[in-house]
């Protein structure tokens, strides 16, 4: 039930572990802090991390008269969340499913969840370009305002996978809003020397090469890692951090482009 959704943002990356879920949750939290009504849909069926990241692990979804009711982070119901994690008995349970079963689950997530009116629906995805991605693209084609945010880390192995993701977006006709580079350098807490653990600048040069907007780079920040599990927004807890600036800018750009009706 996506009729009331004004805008959908897919968070994609080719590689695993680059920070899609961190970006999705922080983006959703930032949008919520700025006063929007937000939904966060986790379509990583085999490795759902959104319930943990937002500290919602023991919650469950309920069946309402018109479909599934998402789990809300706050009493005001400004951030609603849906994830397969809410449907599992234990956090250790594995979802051992092949493609067709994953496909029908994702279809249900898109069709049977009562999101109500949302300004933004953020979708967190697993890595790759396979069943989950194909299904979500096929079912989102009719949503007029839909675009993708790509996440990468700076090193070539990750960049190569993002190039595949760009091809995927082009082939399936989803506009790319831009690229975020994550984990781009680490400042030693002892001597403040910044080491480019995973080399640097890869995201920006890829953006230039592929002619896609570059949305900024987030450093490795153990404080950001520690927000995981608490459901707290970096812009509130770490207002001075570079991370919070990147998300603030990202939200500004998203809202500007929504106003202009320009998806790219």
């Amino acid at each position, binding site marked *: 039930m996506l009729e009331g959704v004004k805008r959908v943002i897919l968070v994609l990356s080719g590689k695993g572990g680059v920070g899609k879920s961190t970006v999705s949750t922080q983006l959703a939290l930032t949008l919520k802090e700025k006063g929007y009504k937000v939904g966060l849909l986790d379509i990583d069926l085999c490795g759902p991390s959104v319930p943990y990241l937002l500290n919602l692990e023991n919650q469950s979804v309920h069946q309402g008269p018109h479909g599934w009711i998402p789990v809300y982070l706050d009493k005001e119901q400004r951030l609603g969340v849906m994830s397969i994690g809410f449907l599992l008995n234990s956090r250790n349970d594995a979802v051992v499913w092949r*493609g067709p079963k994953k496909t029908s689950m994702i279809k249900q997530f898109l069709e049977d969840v009562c999101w109500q009116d949302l300004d933004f629906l953020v979708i967190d995805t697993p890595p790759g370009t396979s069943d989950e991605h194909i299904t979500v693209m096929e079912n989102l084609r009719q949503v007029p305002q839909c675009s993708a945010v790509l996440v990468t880390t700076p090193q070539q192995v990750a960049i190569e996978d993002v190039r595949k993701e760009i091809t*995927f977006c082009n082939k399936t006709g989803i506009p790319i809003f831009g690229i975020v580079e994550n984990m781009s350098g*680490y400042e030693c807490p002892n001597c403040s*020397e910044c*080491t480019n*653990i995973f*080399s640097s600048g890869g995201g920006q040069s890829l953006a230039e090469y592929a002619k896609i907007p570059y949305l900024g780079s987030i450093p490795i920040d153990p404080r950001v890692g520690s927000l995981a599990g608490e459901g707290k927004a970096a812009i509130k807890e770490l207002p001075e951090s570079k991370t919070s600036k990147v998300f603030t800018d990202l939200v500004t750009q998203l809202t500007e482009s929504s106003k202009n009706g320009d998806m790219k």
Partner: protein
Amino acid sequence: MLTIGTLFLTLSNTLFRNFRLSGKPSWHPLCCSFAFNPQLGLVGVLDADICGPSQPRVLGVGGERVHHSGSGWSPVYVSDNLCLMSIGFLLGSPDDAVIWRGPKKNGMIKQFLSEVDWGDLDYLLIDTPPGTSDEHLSVVQYLCGAGLTGAVLVSTPQETALLDVRKEISFCRKLKVPLIGVLENMAGFLCPHCKTRSDIFPATTGGVTAMCTEMDVPYLGSLLLQPALARAADDPTLPARDTTNAALDIRAKIMAFCERNSS
């Protein structure tokens, strides 16, 4: 053409590894410490990550192509005793995306296992993408009759990674894949400037050791985050071997498991 059955008679040991990382293939140090050791005999690496093959670049053979010979596809030799097969070798350009649903990925994996002329391998290491779905099921299914020695799981210390590893453990138990153990990667960072150690990915829930105790799985050891290794994956001219004692110790544990459990 080889069939799966005859191919795997030649494998004395098969290592099945699950891929779980933050930012950087955690595979790399383990694989290199395995692969570049001539005493191990012939090691084959199968990249079962169909949508995001990174082994060609990680092992420094990014531009290579596979050849078709009388006995099937020939894997690409990285050194005298290390060969690799990956879908990366079959793509025209790094921009090519493999937009396939499960059945096509399964077909490809089956082909890699049955139509690649691996020769007389001593070890076959299989690198899988994250998850518990088609690739994993297919690998286990195609290998179950052929002596799958076990699975090594790789995790970083923080709970988001451990959550996925718990699921992989449940997966292995469900499919009766023996668990060799879990190894912790990127456990800490040694600043190249001041030599102080700090935790990049804080183990807020006790890290891999606590999870191993809770889930009753062997713990293999812990590796530091090494910027030199991470960069070596991008630049094949840099030395890429993890020769720290921790890495050698983990390798010894894995080999001991394989020796105990090989038929």
